[in-house]
């Protein structure tokens, strides 16, 4: 079976989207004072690091950066078995912070639900906002992103693949048809 792949965002496109999102985050939160970034493994953590670079460029310094692994919070143990558990690293307090949760692709919303549960176990943020590079629709939970790089209408069976280079810099986004 031949699967068709289309590049829907090239390296420059990803860069522009992230820069725009960084500006939007700072604008909405009136600066970076109480801001922290938490990326979801794996993919979101790399994008969060990219976003933080841009925030640093704009604001002069970055914000606290953490990663969350949502494996322990999944709801599909029975369907997928015991997936490898990655490390969650949030080396700072979340209480009272404005948390920007970062993921690469927003799909059913279940990953975000899991990530929010995880964050709540670490403290009581004043708010959680969601930043994603791609929103491909097909939500199964009442979740929406606050910051979106690109909305991509997809069929359910299609896949979105966000690729990174060796330096963990996002290279391109492909849409893969089954």
């Amino acid at each position: 079976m031949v699967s068709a792949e289309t590049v829907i965002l090239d390296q420059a496109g990803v860069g522009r989207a992230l820069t725009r999102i960084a500006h939007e985050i700072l604008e909405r939160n009136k600066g970076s004072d109480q801001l922290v970034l938490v990326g979801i493994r794996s993919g979101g953590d790399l994008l969060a690091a990219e976003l933080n670079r841009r925030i640093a460029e704009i604001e002069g310094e970055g914000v606290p950066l953490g990663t969350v692994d949502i494996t322990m919070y999944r709801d599909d143990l029975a369907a997928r078995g015991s997936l490898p558990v990655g490390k969650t690293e949030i080396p700072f307090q979340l209480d009272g912070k404005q948390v920007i949760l970062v993921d690469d692709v927003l799909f059913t919303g279940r990953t975000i639900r899991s990530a929010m549960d995880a964050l709540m176990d670490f403290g009581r943020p004043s708010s959680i906002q969601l930043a994603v590079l791609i929103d491909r629709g097909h939500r199964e939970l009442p979740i929406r992103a606050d910051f979106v790089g690109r909305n991509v209408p997809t069929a359910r069976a299609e896949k979105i693949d966000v690729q990174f280079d060796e330096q963990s810099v996002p290279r391109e986004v492909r849409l893969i048809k089954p």
Partner: protein
Amino acid sequence: MAFGHKHILGIEQLSREDIQLILDTGDAFKEINSRDIKKVPTLRGKTIVNAFFEASTRTRLSFEIAGKRLSADTVNIAGSTSSVVKGETLEDTAKNIEAMAPDIIVIRHGHSGAPHYLAERVGCSIVNAGDGAHEHPSQALLDLMTIREHKGTIEGLEVAIVGDITHSRVARSDIYALTRMGARVRLAGPGTMIPPGIEKLGNVVVCRNMLDAIDNADVVMMLRIQLERQSKTLLPSLREYARFYGLNPKNIKLAKADAIVMHPGPMNRGVEISSYVADGVQNVILDQVANGVAVRMALLYLVSGVEAMETQQG
């Protein structure tokens, strides 16, 4: 890679890759234990029965905490090993437990092979928490996790295990685990406590005395002398045991300067280990206990995935 073991009956059945995965998973779970809210919903709705047919405090506690931190419902039952006393066979006991639909039974039993016996007769996952003189897999895994934390790797290490090898399930599991991960194991103990053929379990050398075993070792593991189990034919006295097989500030100097000292607990201070060593900078005994919770969380999590998939497909 996927974990394929529904039961954890012994290290013997685990490959190097399995052990690696368990240790990595344990590392990830360890972070939970330092949180304010030490609980994740991973095994929400799962029921774990800790069936301890032999007295145990720390292993049972460790498994119980591990289950609870993963949000499983853990229930403890204690019983006597002797079916005569219970008036019920182990199979009947197990079938009764099974009728209440647990997902995992963690079993500690005085008879070697009891976990195998259950695994053949019940549908849920069985995790061996120590069976007779056979295996104590979770202890060996927490030992490996602790060694890896301190030494970075297990490959190539020289590990001395000293004490009553014959009656030690910890020694057997550690021998399998250490040699499978590329360590070399040296054993020492009284002649009455070295079982025949032990060197066939892995890359193991039996030393004539304790000093040869700990000479230049990276890790020194002291086994507990079961005071209550020793008949007069195995040892002349604890005094003599301490002299020839006890770890003290003098003989520990034979080991590498950065060697770590381990003990599965509970310690008999002044017998197999001197307090000067037990409380010294080289001891990692409390790290072992802390890692015990993490590695048991890993085991419960990994077998649950296999069990859950099987249930869904079945």
